[in-house]
């Protein structure tokens, strides 16, 4: 059951919205919500040239899987797909995709928000921001 309803991937290559969509699409569901996190040029007034993501791979997969299991249980989802990019990501590139499918749309929105919020809190992935002058690990300022 879990194996077929959950799709967790951490990838070096560009993420595919279609792959996530196709995974969660099914005839039991009327609502699919997809969140796509993309790389912004401007962050807190500084110009970003690109991002670099590093991950503690096996633990990141485990934490993402925990979130997926909880999202299914809590919101009654049919399926959930969570893909995160690692390595260098250019402006407008896709860093993360969360796709969920549910009978009704309210649960889909809530579950998708829950999943991305949770990912940002607990999944061991780190973002290095390359600005036009210098670089730093995000969240890692005193």
């Amino acid at each position: 059951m879990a194996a077929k309803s959950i799709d967790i991937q951490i990838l070096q290559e560009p993420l595919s919205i279609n792959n996530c969509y196709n995974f969660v699409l099914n005839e039991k569901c009327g609502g699919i919500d997809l969140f796509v996190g993309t790389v912004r040029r401007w962050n807190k007034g500084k110009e970003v040239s690109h991002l670099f993501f590093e991950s503690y791979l096996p633990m990141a997969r485990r934490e993402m899987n925990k979130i997926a299991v909880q999202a299914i249980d809590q919101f009654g989802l049919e399926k959930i797909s969570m893909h995160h990019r690692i390595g260098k990501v250019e402006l407008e590139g896709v860093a993360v995709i969360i796709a969920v499918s549910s009978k009704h749309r309210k649960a889909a929105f809530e579950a998708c928000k829950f999943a991305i919020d949770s990912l940002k809190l607990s999944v061991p992935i780190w973002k290095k921001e390359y600005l036009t002058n210098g670089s730093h690990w995000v969240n890692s300022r005193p």
Partner: protein
Amino acid sequence: MKILCFGIAKDIIGTSELILDEHQITVAQLKNQLNEKYPKLLEYKSYMIAINQEYANDESLISINDEIALIPPVSGG
């Protein structure tokens, strides 16, 4: 005992795999050692220790065969 280091912690410690001469130690003791040796870590006080790919609390006991990781504040997504 080997500690995997990521993100800013890797930069501070200067390696992605720190070797400590310990066989059994609590998370609190490990953090004390690390903070003493790498005082810059104290600037990221909310860093966590993971044992075998699970977040651990200060009382958890680490054995030499465990997979240990130093997890600075995450910033995925």
